């Protein structure tokens, strides 16, 4: 009984001769084995970075924002650059888990779990920057609307900065719920095959008593579908609102109507690059090449070249509008502060152009899309480029404003500003290393669901169906089984 028949022309999503048990074994074994030396080294480096970040934040909290090199003109610098960068990275996870679910893209099953984890950790990192940028971080709860003794003086619901508070917190919550509800069946698998008491106890608690009952699966499917439907507009709204932080102001370089689609495309672009960096390592270290295949990597590279080009068109549109508007402030920002290579920050603009627009074009070639080393290298380049993009948008728009007397001196970050950024890398990778060790990095149950239609060995067995006439195929029972089941119900 094939509940879904898939053409032989489509590449298998699971390679090798697998059955259900083998899938469980392959994906859950790394959790039960002792971590490798490499894992420990990576984890320690991540924790060290995190500690450095904690110290940098301690300096900032104790001595104030003056620990950073922000000044009166460049009020947003590395902090908000990093915030937007991390939030953007998070978007790929939701795109893979939600949008591709709605579009019924089977290949998402191999990568969605790790991508969703990445989303959650990236949003955690992103959240640190605006919170600590407040200066008096102990008053951070003032952004919440609650009846208070100060009037009550409420927050300004008309401000994009407050929209951001709601957008990011909703995004984090929904991503976490979506991720965790998907983890329940896999935790139950670990629990049921646990060899030690402690593991059984911990994963048993985490699995919430999941049994795999048909009724529960039915609700689970419905829940996933609706959460995907909710997350899809959510993920678009989040980066749209982040772009509103800039677009609703009247600063040349920020006051642009193309910001929302341009930011969303950039977010997906950088997010997919980060997914590539992480998954290429994960598949190598845990030997999951059969589940995260070259086909998966190629599919993601296609998204990268598409979104990279969308972003490229946005850059060119901005330049065009800088000239076409005949507004001298706009023109100055786009053509001097950004596009002129020898202006103070011209290097960042051309770094961005090279990394984001020119270099991803290599992925028009199939050979390059399927090359693991090229992909890994490009994924790093793209993320560097996307960091430059945010830096360009923020700093080159701010450092010379309408009044030449307030033009800024050259801004470069302080040690603690860089330390804070490195610290979020520490946080991200500490979380990711723990995730890779203790969580199933691939959604086991979802792989099993697609195994018999897209698994290598099963597809081979179905090959003969392609050679029979449509008449025979229609009467062989394939594709009609669900109808039979309805009749039985």
């Amino acid at each position, binding site marked *: 009984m094939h509940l879904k028949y898939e053409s032989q022309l489509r590449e298998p999503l699971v390679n090798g001769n697998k059955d259900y048990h083998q899938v469980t074994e392959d994906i859950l074994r790394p959790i039960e084995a002792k971590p490798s030396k490499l894992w420990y080294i990576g984890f320690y480096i991540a924790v060290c970075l995190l500690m450095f970040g904690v110290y940098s934040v301690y300096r900032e909290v104790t001595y104030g924002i003056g620990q950073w090199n922000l000044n009166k003109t460049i009020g947003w610098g590395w902090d908000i650059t990093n915030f937007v960068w991390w939030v953007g990275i998070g978007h790929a996870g939701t795109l893979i888990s939600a949008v591709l679910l709605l579009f019924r893209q089977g290949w998402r099953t191999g990568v969605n779990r790790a991508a969703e984890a990445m989303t959650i950790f990236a949003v955690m990192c992103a959240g640190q920057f605006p919170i600590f940028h407040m200066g008096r971080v102990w008053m951070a709860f003032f952004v919440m609307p609650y009846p208070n003794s100060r009037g*009550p003086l409420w927050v*300004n619901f008309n401000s994009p900065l407050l929209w951001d508070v709601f957008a990011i917190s909703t995004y984090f919550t929904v991503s976490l719920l979506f991720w965790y509800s998907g983890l329940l069946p896999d935790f139950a698998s670990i629990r049921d095959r646990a060899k030690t008491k402690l593991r059984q106890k911990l994963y048993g608690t985490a699995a919430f008593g999941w*049994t795999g009952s048909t009724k529960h699966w039915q609700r689970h499917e419905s829940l996933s579908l609706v959460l995907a439907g909710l997350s899809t507009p959510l993920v678009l709204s989040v980066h749209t609102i982040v772009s509103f932080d800039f677009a609703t102001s009247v600063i040349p370089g920020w006051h642009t109507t193309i910001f929302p689609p341009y930011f969303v495309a950039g977010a997906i672009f950088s997010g997919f690059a980060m997914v590539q960096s992480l998954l290429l390592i994960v598949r190598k270290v845990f030997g999951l090449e059969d589940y995260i295949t070259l086909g998966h990597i190629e599919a993601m590279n296609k998204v990268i070249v598409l979104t990279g080009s969308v972003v490229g068109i946005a850059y060119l549109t901005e330049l065009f509008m800088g000239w076409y508007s005949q507004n001298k402030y706009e023109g100055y920002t786009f053509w001097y502060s950004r596009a002129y290579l020898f202006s103070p920050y011209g290097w960042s603009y051309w770094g961005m152009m090279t990394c984001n627009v020119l270099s991803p074009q290599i992925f028009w070639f199939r050979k390059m899309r399927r090359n693991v080393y090229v992909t890994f290298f490009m994924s790093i380049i793209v993320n560097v480029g996307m960091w430059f993009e945010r830096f360009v948008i923020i700093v080159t728009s701010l450092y010379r404003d309408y009044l030449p007397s307030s033009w800024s001196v050259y801004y470069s970050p302080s040690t603690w500003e860089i330390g804070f950024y490195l610290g979020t890398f520490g946080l991200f990778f500490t979380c990711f290393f723990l995730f890779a060790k203790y969580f199933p990095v691939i959604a086991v149950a979802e792989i099993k669901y697609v195994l018999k239609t897209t698994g290598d060995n099963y597809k081979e067995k179905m090959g003969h169906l392609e050679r029979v006439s449509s008449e025979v195929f229609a009467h062989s029972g394939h594709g009609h089984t669900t109808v039979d089941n309805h009749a039985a119900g």
Partner: protein
Amino acid sequence: MAKKKFVVGCFDDEEVLFPAVKKVRRAGYKLHDIYTPFAVHGLDHAMGLRETSIHTAGFIYGITGTTTALSCISWILTKDWPLNIGGKPHFALPAWIPITFELTVMFAAVGMVLTFCYLCQLAPFVKKHHFHARATDDLFVMVIECTEKTNTDDLKAFLTNSGAIETDLQIAEADWWVGSYDKDEMPFEGKKEIAA
């Protein structure tokens, strides 16, 4: 809650499972549940389960979020503390759409997940009887509830004939209890009669 008697049949292929479900239902046995390692599409229909209405709950939570956001913001910005922001109108509906949307999504998602956990009785430290440890690995475990009249040997043979690779008779608690996998706290202890 009480313990009940169950006959368990394990299948290793969903292609065998579907006809077996049909046969079991036709024979009039009471299907307790089928435990599967992944969502087998169509199995709920084959078992005769009704559609879940969890999405309807999600919609209700969603509109609750919408109304909460709109009513709170409009009250705050027009009645409780009307702020003059550049002389713009106090009732600035377009500017409230982002937060209204976010709260809609937040309410719908949180509400649905909580409803899901409540309906499926899922929570940390909740324990349920596992009819087969491989039900979360590679077996489709069909559980049939016995009545006084059920001939368990016949039923086992029936399941084997339908393609079950393993059959078993179990007396088990059908409901959940609290525990942490090395310690059981049975809230239903004392009512230990067999309802079969």
